[in-house]
């Protein structure tokens, strides 16, 4: 058996893949990684399939002990990362020997980081996905004393994984972006023009009332008011909707949102910017910008194409020899690592 024993884990960590489609009509929304780009980075680095699962860590990581030899990578929002006493690179394939301790600390930027194992993390498939869904209470939220296991893999795939050690990806620029683009929606007209205009005028922050279901926002311009009041017939919610509750506080609905809700929506974050918004730390100022729907659709296509091209950007880390404590692990001498299965 190989894998990572969880010694400590910050709250909010869940197993995530790309989510589940086809169950909304039964009351379950797609869910899946809060930052699908960050999830994809790790899949590309390790050569894991696009439906493979990783550990999503919110704001903080955890402590893990390697059981046997493992090949892992951390992606998404960068957190401080050490193997035993050595700092290691984020977005880089690293190898762990039996007993090595992997320490993932607080976020250095962003909010959601991903820990991947070669082959993907084994977790129960529920409704065709390994994603934990907070609102629907599905899937696996790991706890200390449990272990993360890779899906069954043969010696051949472990050998393939070894060749990837040191592969890395560059940091994507969306962590520097302070503009979230939005669209008008079916209920935008229920709000005063002044309130709709304030979306673009004000500087916004995400409050600490946030989780996988959604995030409450605040701005200097105060509460918003739907002219229709707070009660309208329940209707479908899509990810990115900015709903305004009775108290006038807007909230962005995210991966694990409910399928239907009764609050009016003032606008909707474009699909290409939802992961960017999810990664915005509490109290960081950002702006919202109304765009045309055709722009939003083009941006979505561009994001998908960037994700599809990630593997072309994978490169061998240029490593400082003084950091190469694991020199012997490189295939300078064949057979130092035995395939353990």
């Amino acid at each position: 058996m190989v894998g990572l024993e969880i010694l400590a884990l910050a709250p909010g960590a869940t197993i995530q893949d790309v989510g589940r489609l086809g169950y909304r009509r039964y009351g379950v929304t797609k869910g899946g990684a809060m930052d699908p780009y960050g999830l994809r980075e790790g899949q590309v680095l390790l050569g894991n399939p696009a439906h493979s699962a990783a550990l999503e860590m919110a704001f903080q990581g955890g402590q893990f002990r390697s059981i046997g030899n493992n090949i892992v990578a951390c992606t998404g929002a960068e957190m401080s990362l050490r193997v035993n006493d050595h700092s290691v690179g984020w977005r880089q394939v690293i190898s762990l020997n039996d007993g090595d301790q992997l320490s993932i600390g607080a976020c250095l930027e962003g909010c959601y980081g991903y820990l991947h194992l070669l082959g993907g993390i084994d977790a129960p498939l529920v409704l065709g996905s390994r994603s934990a869904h907070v609102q629907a209470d599905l899937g696996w939220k790991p706890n200390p004393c449990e272990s993360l296991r890779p899906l069954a893999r043969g010696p051949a795939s472990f050998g393939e994984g070894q060749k990837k050690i040191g592969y890395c990806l560059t940091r994507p620029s969306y962590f520097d972006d302070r503009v979230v683009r939005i669209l008008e929606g079916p209920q935008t007209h229920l709000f005063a023009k002044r309130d709709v205009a304030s979306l673009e005028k004000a500087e916004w922050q995400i409050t600490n009332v946030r989780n996988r279901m959604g995030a409450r926002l605040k701005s200097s311009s105060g509460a918003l008011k739907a002219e229709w009041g707070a009660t309208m017939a329940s209707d479908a919610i899509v990810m990115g909707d900015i709903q305004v509750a009775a108290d006038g506080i807007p909230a962005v609905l995210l991966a694990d949102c409910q399928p239907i809700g009764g609050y009016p929506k003032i606008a909707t974050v474009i699909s290409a910017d939802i992961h960017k918004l999810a990664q915005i730390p509490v109290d960081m100022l950002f702006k919202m910008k109304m765009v045309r729907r055709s722009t939003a659709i083009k941006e979505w296509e561009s994001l998908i194409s960037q994700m599809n091209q990630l593997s072309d950007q994978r490169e061998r880390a240029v490593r400082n020899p003084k950091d190469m404590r694991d020199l012997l692990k490189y295939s300078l001498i064949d057979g130092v690592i035995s395939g353990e299965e």
Partner: protein
Amino acid sequence: MQYPRICEAGDQALLIEFGETYSREVSCAVMAFDRELNHSQPPLEGIVETAPTLRSVLVQFDSTKGDPQHIENWCRAALEGKNWYSEKTPVTGHNWRIPVIYGGEGGPDLAEVASLVGLTESQVIESHSSAELTVLCLGFSPGLAYLAELPETFAIPRRNAYTARPVPAGSILIANQQTVLPATPIQTGWWRIGMTPVMTFRPERAKPFLFSPSDRVRFQPITESEANDSWLDTLWEALDHGRA
């Protein structure tokens, strides 16, 4: 506002609204349109999933897999093609008879509901279990079904407050001439008049949800001693074999 209308719900979905609020006509139109969309030949490229609500149909697509304009054009032509409000809900869903233990521990509000609507408890049971209900949509929580339409007697508002503790899966809840049947524990302001031993959401099964939108449901009063497992498996096997 003119209905039906096509709204843009973000950049990867359309919301086809058939009315401002729920009504029987609106809901029938919703179910008929959802069915037509899912049975269009050839299938519409790019559609990821559709979901009916009490007054609209959400059409989610992926614009990298199909042209959103083509999907919108199809919807517009379909809406203009006929009067959706004259649709009677097509009877192609499953027909379920769901056993319910009315009153007792699983239906603590039965007496209060009876006095609220001016019937005896057994008249409430008789009336509730003789109505043929339609699954309008599922939502709020996984597998939670909205069923309508109960006789006008049951046009009662919800309770003033939510339950302190979640009510269990299988609770038979009523208000507003509707019944709600949750498949997971939920907090609710609806009146709780009974309990079914049938689990309507079994995540381990290939078809994990017993109900689909536009299924028909009739409740059958049973006693506690009749609530054994053989009911449950018969129902789920019927789903697997399309015999319900």
